[in-house]
């Protein structure tokens, strides 16, 4: 099993950031995905989108609550977010991250400052935040395999030999 590793600066958001705040309903009809990266987090902080390229998103509790819209994860990926770290995440959003191959780490006692350097390794359930090692809740072996494959579609294509 391979892992996804990376490093990037922390971009921090607060608690209960819902998927409407990640990408608002008014943009969901589009087929042009560049619209997502332009408007991601628009209702939370319009300056955020420009800072996400190569960043690791750091969130408080209940990240991605609300709507099941997978477009929220697509928007983060389009904007260049490498990985997501949260104190806790809503169930559907968490699963959408895995299914789209966006590394997601749950660290219940997460503490981080804007701009801290984050290093991550999906297989090790381990993160380095500003040089300090922290543990994340372990993912199941299957979730790790889906992540490593780049998402559920690639995983299924590999498993079914297509």
């Amino acid at each position, binding site marked *: 099993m391979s892992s996804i590793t990376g490093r990037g600066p922390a971009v921090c958001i607060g608690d*209960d950031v*819902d998927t*409407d*705040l990640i990408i*608002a*309903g*008014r*943009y*969901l*009809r*589009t*087929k042009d995905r560049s619209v997502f990266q332009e408007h991601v987090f*628009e*209702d*939370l902080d319009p300056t955020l989108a420009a800072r996400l390229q190569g960043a690791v998103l750091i969130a408080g*509790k*209940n990240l991605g*609550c*609300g*709507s*099941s*819209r*997978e*477009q929220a*994860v697509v928007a983060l990926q389009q904007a260049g977010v490498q990985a997501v770290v949260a104190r*806790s995440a*809503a*169930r*559907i959003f968490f*699963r*959408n991250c895995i*299914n*789209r191959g966006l590394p997601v780490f749950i660290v219940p006692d997460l503490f981080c400052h804007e701009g801290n350097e984050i290093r991550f390794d999906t297989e090790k359930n381990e993160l380095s935040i500003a040089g300090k090692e922290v543990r994340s809740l372990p993912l*199941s072996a*299957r979730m790790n395999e889906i992540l490593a494959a780049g*998402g*559920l*579609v690639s995983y*299924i*294509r590999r498993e*079914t030999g*297509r």
Partner: protein
Amino acid sequence: MAKTIVEKIFSEQCGRNISAGDVVMAPVSGAMLHDITGPLAIDKFYEMGGDRVFDPAKVIMMFDHQAPADSLDAAENQKKMRIFAKEQGIYNYDIKEGVCHQVTMEKGRVSPGDIVVGGDSHTCTYGAAGAFATGIGSTDLGFVLRFGCLYFRVPETIRAEVSGRFSDLVGPKDLILKMTGDIGADGATYRAIEFCGETIERMGMAGRMTCCNMAIEMGAKAGLVPPDAVTRRWCEEYTSCTWKEFVSDPGATYHSTRSFDVSDLVPQVAVPHNVDHVVDVTAVAGTPVDQVFIGSCTNGRYEDLAEAAQVLKYRSFSNDVRVLVIPASRTEYLKALRAGIIERFVEAGALVEAPCCGPCMGGSFGLIAAGEVSFATSNRNFRGRQGSTSGEVYLGSPATATATAITGKITDPREVA
């Protein structure tokens, strides 16, 4: 071993003994797609090598979020889904029936003991029928379309025991808002909530749907009401199902038990911008509003419209408020029409729109401008949810919404009744 309803449903559907915490590949009895998350699910179905869907009779399709098409993009999305439905032999309710969750229920596409998934977080509504129903993302939905099953982590259950009789003009929406305030927006994450107790037993299907609908606002994977005589009557009227009754065994293991007594409950309001930020209506009474929306999968049924009409009587709505009334489905619309309720709303100054999600998702019509305030019977008051980021959304019952629409400011319905 004693089991919860959820454990029994998974055990039955998987054909083996299953307990909370198990991760299982379970067959699904129904998969619901709508116009917002459906197109992406269809893409994923094909990307995963899909050719024919697992069972066209188990796929439920309709358009409600941007229906009728409000833009060229929406028109193209709907066209894509219509073509898919035709090619796959899926019955498509299209734009003519109403809001997905109401339609799925009233067309009898859900039965007690089913496992149903949908590309919408409020899929948990179907728990009112004693089914395990949960919202999923589009990739998972594409997987279900192809394979007819999905991985689930079988959730532990929070038992919500409700006792007491509601006072006049206090009802299921006030209860579920109160519960959301107490349990919190993430207090039930990864859990199922079983609504039970004498108050739930006396509640009709409409109220049970309101409660189950908002289970997701506490982060729950599903909300369920144990099937009983009320469910059975509903089943006989709306479905062709074989009656299967899954109820939790005495001694089943619960994650926790919460008790609620509605005897002294007063109308509840969720204030901006979180659904769990809930107060008694008296705490925000007098707040001026610009728009009132009565409708949605939470509160757009005949019973909700009748409750509104009961408060409205022969009065008119305030000239300072835009009032949108949107029945949740064609069937509910017809019931209200025949009862003379729709006529009353129109006379009072409301715009009665055809069944759809309306302003609930803030993408189609009936949006609020910067600094404006909306009072809605829907389920989310997130920032920007009904339009401008600097707008504010309050949530409450149809009775409170109607009282508010009459006076132009948030009003305790018991004061105008």
